């Protein structure tokens, strides 16, 4: 019997921690993990709202869960391309510090 409020507040807090990680850290891998954390926070809100709708209507409701399914698929695609980019940047610049990656020229 947990209020819906609590889930939404937890989702907002996790999202803010993800934003904080993106802003504070200089390591692109940890920035990527923070983005994953933000996606995860949004997923939690999706499932919580879906459950709330389900209880309010009294019949099964799957759209929230299916949206989370799509978000997971998009996150997997994003991670594959993003990590390939990070490895390429490391190969050319020999560093992963994003302060040193400030030019588009390879």
């Amino acid at each position: 019997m947990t209020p819906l409020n609590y889930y939404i507040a937890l989702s907002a807090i996790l999202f803010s921690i993800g934003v904080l990680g993106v802003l504070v850290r200089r390591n692109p891998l940890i920035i990527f993990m923070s983005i994953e954390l933000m996606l995860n926070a949004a997923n939690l809100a999706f499932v919580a709202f879906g459950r709330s709708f389900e209880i309010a209507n009294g019949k099964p409701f799957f759209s929230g869960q299916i949206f989370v399914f799509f978000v997971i698929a998009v996150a997997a695609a994003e991670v594959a391309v993003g990590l390939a980019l990070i490895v390429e940047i490391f190969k050319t610049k020999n560093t992963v510090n994003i302060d040193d990656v400030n030019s588009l020229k390879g």
Partner: protein
Amino acid sequence: MTSDLIVFIVLALIAIASALGMAFSQNTVYAALYLVLNFIVVAVFYLLLGAPFIAMAQITVYAGAIMVLFVFVIMLLGVQGLPPSQTLPWQKPLAVLLAVVLAVQSIYLLLARAPLAQTLVDPDASINTTNNLQQMALTLFSDYLLPFEITSILLLVAMVGAIVLSKHDKKAGTSHDAA
């Protein structure tokens, strides 16, 4: 009733602590492991919300596949911590301030202005895993068939993109030795 609330609060504290640990740990491998813990706790929340399939997909895809990929790249690039940034010394306190403002503002906008008074009853035995999965699959392959197919194309494009990015240019010679 109170036991559900206690379970929620304990899990929420673990989730927030592991997220903070991820955002602030200097060792990248520790950060990845904190994130795995966070994903598993969120999967337990999905179970509490009556979404067993999403919980298992979260564990296999996120905590399994994606984080293994992360750890693999961390091992490839080295785990050394980076020195603190010299270029923008005021960035860190400002970022913390802005993140706190964002958290307070989003909670205020989502909850204080439009109170969501509903309580979520934990799923009982009436949520049968097999039945739940069957109905979800029916919805996915009827109402959401087009997005599903687009997702498959997206995954194909991502796969081709990753291969193209990591394919070595013959003219560039032995640049891959740096890794």
